[in-house]
């Protein structure tokens, strides 16, 4: 059985609003992953909620523990957040990063599969605070697209 680690949430915003980097279709994606017989391991902070369908939920892990956990998994999926940087630094296995309004050419790594729905959703001010940006559900790829990409990635391994 394949094991996939997910890091579903970007940092909480200071204005309390939803971070525009957060993927809106996690529940659908996890459902698809479960149908494919994948064990889903979620990591997060104390404030993060456990997503329905997740098999294992680990909160507040040390960075070294996250690194070890990623190594144990077949691959990983995250939004544009710290995990892609951690994996790139430690040269861990490639994963899937779901982008929306931030530019993967700037914030992503070519070693990963960076999923951007369309360039037209990229925000003009790439370097401004995320509090200055509105959430846009339309900017994300669908759960099925991520699942298809994941299936291909796992079958290539």
């Amino acid at each position, binding site marked *: 059985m394949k094991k996939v680690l997910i890091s579903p949430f970007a*940092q909480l915003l200071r204005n309390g609003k939803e971070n525009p980097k957060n993927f809106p279709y996690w529940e659908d994606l996890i459902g698809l992953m479960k149908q494919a017989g994948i064990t889903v391991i979620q990591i997060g902070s104390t404030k993060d909620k456990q997503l329905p369908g997740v098999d294992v939920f680990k909160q507040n892990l*040390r*960075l*070294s523990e996250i690194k070890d956990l990623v190594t144990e998994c077949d691959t990983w999926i995250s939004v544009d*957040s*710290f*995990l*892609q*940087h*951690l994996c*790139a*630094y430690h040269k861990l296995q490639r994963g899937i990063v779901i982008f929306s309004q931030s530019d993967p*050419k*700037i*914030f*992503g*790594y070519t070693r990963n599969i960076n999923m951007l729905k369309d360039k037209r959703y990229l925000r003009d*001010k*790439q*370097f*401004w605070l995320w509090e200055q940006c509105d959430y846009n559900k339309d900017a994300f790829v669908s759960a099925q697209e991520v699942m298809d990409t994941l299936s291909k990635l796992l079958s290539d391994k």
Partner: protein
Amino acid sequence: MITDKVTATVSTKGRYHNTFPLVLTSLANQTLRPSRLIIYDDNDTLEDIRENEIYRNVLFLLNRRGINWEVTVGERKGQIHNHQRALTDVKSEFIWRLDDDNIMEPDTLEKLYNYIITDPKIAAVGPLILDPKSEINNKLASNKIEDIFMGMNIQWCDPKVESFIEVDHLQGSTFLFRKEAGAHGYDLNLSKVGHREETIFTYEMRRAGWKLVVMTGVKTWHMRFGAGGIRSDQQVKMFERDESIFYDYLKKWGIKPSNVKIFPLNSGIGDHYAFRSILPAIKEKWKGCRIVIGACYPAVFEGEENIEIVSLSDATSFVNEEECNVYRWMDQRNWKKSLSEALKTMYTS
């Protein structure tokens, strides 16, 4: 208690009607008081402080508390000339130099004196000299002579624990010293502002084999005031000239000032990792420098060698955080390449 082993001296200018009465009051309230006080009045226009009602009260108070005070007209060439005169005027074993804008906590002299007499090799003991408006405790603070240009010494920080730290030099004008250890005197070539005078004076003690100690459990309060003292001259050139003299001293002493490169990371974990990925290039670029990182997430740098990690706030005491903001840097350049490349270009080219 009164001791005739200590004479307090203070050189004053431009502080008649602001901080100086506070200094005298805190002196009168010491648990251990010097039997003698010499005031070097360095004001250009002299006032007879006995004619002032507040001063009259304070001066009577000093007398009633057993402190025999005297006012002498200063050299008006800057405080170092008065400090130099004090070396002759004072007959006691110890001189307690006071700054004319420092308030000493009541047990200051008692603690300094009780410590200095424990070891005949101790030349001078200095207290903390704290700004009441800002609470500082910076891990990078240092009284090592190599770190002189860091601009942050341990006497300005309050670690909130009592400790006795041997140092290379004392900073701040208030300290207690053994007159014998100051026989080399002050450098009278320094300008009126006397920039670095206490560092030169006390480091020469150290070089002569004496010990210098900072007592972190002893506090004096620096009542910063925008006029008077060395600030009244408003002459940057004097500071520059004194600094040039100080460089000559460093050369003579064979001191190579430490070169510190500080990187404040006011960012998320991901940005910390991106920064870590370019550390080899940074180490190469700043070879021979102390590399200090002000980090919000120190764990990102676990196992990294030849760097120092401090808190972000410690780091930003030394550098302009905004100028080190990679997002601002990228925004200004309409950056299109990767974050790591931006960091590398920003810090190494």
